[in-house]
């Protein structure tokens, strides 16, 4: 099992005994990632794919190596890895490049448990194109309900989250991807909550696109990934036009660059790419199977301990990703969060950027704890004990 006490020492922000339990929002960063970024700026900062001097060559090599490292991590080819700002931008890229081709009788299928980043782009693209926006509901346990009925011959795009950022539900995406393909639709997976937690293999899943963010997996903010199958990417129009995405520009015409650069217009986030590469190396050293097993162990321990608190409502299915959303009587999540903050414990409260889902639970806000590799059993104990104190103070 992972040694979280030892791992914790790699994270400078956790030195002041901060109990950080909002990992589904963003993860903290280890020295290894911070130092790699520092090294880039102190030693070889230069624009990529342009200069021919030494540091420009080194920056370009590292930037391209980052594509290869990400590709290997999810079992893709390097030219299938497009760097974006985040999951949201990755999904918008597909929505604008492919989605705008939709016609009136076409359908786009998402689910009620989508993060706004995989909900709003499709809702708006459907408004623009007149395509039908279909939302798969969930059952009382928090699993997708009757998804087979929503994917039809008219469905052109199925865009589903791999795991819910509120309920923790891990969706049967392999079945959904198969069903999408049987109906001739493109399958897009929002992997923001899963790629940081377990090994995701795009070849095995056979998804057409996978979107995820670096910052939830130890890398800096501002670097995200869009994986796309090369034959689909080749046929797609660029999302942004400008520098680096071109092979040749004439007054009235432009020939676009090869993959993946065709989709990476403008000076990219080189420090982010280097940080992401280092983050993946860190995670691979731990082993993604170990990461998953450890976070599962902590989550189960937390679920057990929360049972000590009467009047607590935990949302989501038994088998879940590493997070727990809950409500304690009429204690508002922000009051719970503010109270725990006084004890140096950071938890999340609010609609979690998933308003349709949270509202369907009959709530306007819920509280959430989410775990990662540096969290310990003591962190969970401090949180549960703190929550008991909050229960006493607010008399709920």
């Amino acid at each position, binding site marked *: 099992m992972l040694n979280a006490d030892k791992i914790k020492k790699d994270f400078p922000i956790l030195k002041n005994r901060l109990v950080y339990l909002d990992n589904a929002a963003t993860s903290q960063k280890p020295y290894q990632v911070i130092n790699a970024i520092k090294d880039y700026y102190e030693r070889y900062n230069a624009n990529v794919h342009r200069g021919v001097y030494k540091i420009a060559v080194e920056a370009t090599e590292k930037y391209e190596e980052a594509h290869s490292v990400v590709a290997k991590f999810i079992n893709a080819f390097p030219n299938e890895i497009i760097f974006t700002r985040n999951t949201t931008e990755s999904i918008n890229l597909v929505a604008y490049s492919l989605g705008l081709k939709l016609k009136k009788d076409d359908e786009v299928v998402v689910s009620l448990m989508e993060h706004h980043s995989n909900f709003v782009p499709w809702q708006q693209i459907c408004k623009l194109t007149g395509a039908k926006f279909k939302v798969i509901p969930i059952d009382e346990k928090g699993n997708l309900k009757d998804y087979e009925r929503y994917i039809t011959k008219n469905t052109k795009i199925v865009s589903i989250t791999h795991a819910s950022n509120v309920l923790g539900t891990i969706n049967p995406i392999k079945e959904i991807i198969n069903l999408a393909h049987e109906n001739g639709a493109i399958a897009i997976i929002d992997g923001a909550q899963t790629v940081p937690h377990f090994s995701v293999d795009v070849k095995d899943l056979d998804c057409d696109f996978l979107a995820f963010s670096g910052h939830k997996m130890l890398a800096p903010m501002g670097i995200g990934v869009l994986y796309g199958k090369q034959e689909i990417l080749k046929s797609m129009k660029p999302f942004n036009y400008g520098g680096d995405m071109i092979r040749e520009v004439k007054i009235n015409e432009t020939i676009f660059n090869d993959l993946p650069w065709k989709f990476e217009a403008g000076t990219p986030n080189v420090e982010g790419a280097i940080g992401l590469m280092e983050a993946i190396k860190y995670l691979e050293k731990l082993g993604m199977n170990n990461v998953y097993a450890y976070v599962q162990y902590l989550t189960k321990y937390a679920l057990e301990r929360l049972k000590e608190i009467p009047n607590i409502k935990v949302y989501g299915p038994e088998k879940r990703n590493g997070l727990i959303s809950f409500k304690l009587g009429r204690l508002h999540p922000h009051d719970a969060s*503010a109270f725990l903050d006084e004890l140096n414990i950071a938890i999340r409260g*609010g*609609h979690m950027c998933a308003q349709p889902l949270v509202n369907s639970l009959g*709530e*306007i*806000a819920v509280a959430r704890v989410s775990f990662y590799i540096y969290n310990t059993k003591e962190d969970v104990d401090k949180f549960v004990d703190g929550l008991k104190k909050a229960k006493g103070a*607010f*008399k709920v």
Partner: protein
Amino acid sequence: MDIFMENILDHWRNPRNSGSIKNPDISFFDNNPLCGDEIKMQLIIKDNIIQEVKFLGRGCSISQASADLLSNFVKEKSLEEIKNIKNNQIIEMLGIPIGPVRIKCALLALFALKKGIYLKEGIKMEDNDLNGNSQN
């Protein structure tokens, strides 16, 4: 726990002015979707003076306690006086420091009240119009 926080919790647990008014002169619902706070302010007005005020809502202790404290405060005050309530007065009533994250919770009831009064006069106010007060 801090004595000022105790006061807020007391108003949150046992609000003095929660409820509904039958046939109110002004009824205004406002919410803060990001936090999930909701407030409906209802008033009976006679000769421009508030005779009765009730609120209904759900949300965090700060949003609900400020609605209750504000309701106490505005009874028998004129509509003009209410329009001139400064944002800082709410924070003083609450008696605890309110950071940038919770300020929206603290001001929800005041904004709902002001928006309701302005709307009655035919003026549609938004948070942006009312936020200017925070400097005063």
